[in-house]
């Protein structure tokens, strides 16, 4: 096993029980993602890409095969342990942002730190720092409903980054955004990647996939294509001011 693998999957199977029938979603996935890579997972709906992402994010368990996260074997574990893994290793970004509507931007960003038992003062201070880096400091006290889609996704990115994860899992991060905003979000994600964080993006948009280093296509529960993106260009804009 190579040591710089952050995510390594071997012969992964997953099926869901639907009444009497079992729906076989993942039929033996092999995957090796190195630390610091930026990878996109593509595939038509029903190809199993969301299921794969859920298993990678320890939101769901796999039936067969091996999954190593940062060289730690992930098995069926209780919820408390899974929650701790998610909190320490993984940052999630969702299509629908999934911000908590009655908490303001700062509180939303600070939330993962609450589950790390960090004091309110410290976590709010850190949240402001991350909001500032994403250019949203003056929106810190606004509720999600008062913000635009791009702003909301940037807050979600800040929330994913604040716990200093090893991997960012983004499920259709630009699905709810217009193309201009989509590119801005992708710029940010690329910058995040350049900080050394592995970024895995599930998308069905070719434009988005072509901004990652590697594109993995899922077809009916198996990997159909796994190729390095020759057109990949590092971001040259400086939206995300890295301190």
């Amino acid at each position, binding site marked *: 096993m190579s040591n710089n693998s952050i995510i390594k999957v071997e012969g992964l199977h997953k099926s869901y029980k639907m009444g009497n029938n079992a729906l076989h979603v993942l039929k033996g996935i092999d995957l090796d993602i190195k630390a610091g890579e930026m990878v996109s997972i593509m595939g038509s709906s029903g190809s199993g890409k969301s299921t794969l992402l859920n298993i990678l994010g320890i939101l769901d368990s796999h039936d067969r095969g091996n999954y190593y996260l940062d060289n730690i074997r992930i098995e069926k574990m209780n919820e408390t342990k899974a929650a701790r893994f998610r909190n320490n290793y993984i940052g999630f970004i969702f299509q629908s942002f999934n911000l908590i509507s009655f908490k303001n931007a700062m509180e939303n960003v600070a939330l993962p730190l609450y589950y790390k038992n960090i004091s309110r003062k410290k976590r709010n201070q850190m949240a402001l720092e991350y909001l500032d880096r994403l250019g949203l400091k003056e929106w810190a006290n606004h509720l999600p409903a008062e913000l635009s889609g791009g702003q909301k996704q940037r807050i979600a990115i800040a929330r994913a980054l604040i*716990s200093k994860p090893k991997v960012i899992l983004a499920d259709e991060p630009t699905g709810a955004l217009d193309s201009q905003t989509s590119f801005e979000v992708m710029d940010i994600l690329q910058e995040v990647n350049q900080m050394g964080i592995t970024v895995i993006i599930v998308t069905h948009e070719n434009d988005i996939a072509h901004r990652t280093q590697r594109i993995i296509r899922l077809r009916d529960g198996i990997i159909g294509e796994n190729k390095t993106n020759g057109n990949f260009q590092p971001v040259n804009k400086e939206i995300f001011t890295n301190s």
Partner: protein
Amino acid sequence: MTGFSVAWGIFMLILLLGSGNGLQHGMENNFRGTAKNALWIWSRQTQVSYEGLQAGRRIQFTNEDYNHLVNMFYDDISNISGRFRLWGSGTVTYKDQYGDYDLEGVRPEFQHIQIVDMLQGRYLNQMDMNEHRKVAILSLPVKKALFRDEDPIGKYIRISKVPFMVVGIFENPERRDDEKIYIPVNTAQRVFNGSNQLSELAISTNALTVAENKRIEEAVRTTLMKRHRVAPDDKQAIGIWNTLEHFKQAQGVFSGIRLFVWVIGIMTIIAGIVGVSNIMIILVKERTKEIGIRKAIGATPWSVIRLVLSESVFITSVSGFLGLVFGMGLLSAVSMVLQTVAENSPNVENIFYNPTANVSVVVSALVVLIVAGLIAGFVPARKAAGIKPIEALHDE
């Protein structure tokens, strides 16, 4: 609205407990003027012929009965007094004021059996007895009628034209409007041709339990029946009112009422708990997505349970506290009104008085509240902890 049922439950609980206390205080007021272990002894006509004596014979207590009881029950009796009563027969005058009042000759020990508050001057004492002094103490209504605002101590009133010096003013806390005059019993016997007769006897025993008081009561009864040759199966000739027995009985009734009140209160609160629990379940459903987000971010099941439970405890505590405050407020208002009413009509305070919920009740109500909150939150919290983040997040 969520916590209204809980607030209502606590409100009712406090109100009911307060009312229970009020009834109990009223009952205790009834006994306040009497030593709790007193025996009141009176005589009537015999119902059964015995030892050649006809039925319908009138039993008359005398000083000999008194002396006999004093000697015989030396260990059991703490105070004993003969009572020589003149029912409204003595017209009492002071200057141009006059009235008919209950006149009673008693011993100084009587103050420990029929307890009165001395407002002025002193009670009758042993010197009065020894010297057959013509002294009297008056209840407050008598003093007001005869003396108005004048200081009565040392003044002479005439009872059936015999002058008595007033040495004290008292008030019977049990019956404030009692119009009564006490004089020394032997003076009464001498002045009103009673020779050695006594109308009644009153004893306060040193018994601590109902059973012991009952034993003394029976022993006294048997002794008196023997002395007066009353048939052993004659239940009517000699009557004894056992205060302790009745006091304990009443107390038993009231602890029963209190238990009943608690049961009703708890039932009401349970209804409230079910209501809150239901609403919390709906709340958890509404917040499924939020809980899913929290879990994806790293919330452990335990932290989710804590989130829901603390909310549920918060709702029940706040609403319960409101109920508590309103209940206490109403009680103290009622209590104040009752006190004002009682000033004018003393009977009220013997029925319902000072309906308060004390500290222990409030503390136990608060404990009940927190427990209620925990119980109400338990099912919803379990539901919330069981939410799967993938399902919650894909539930658009």
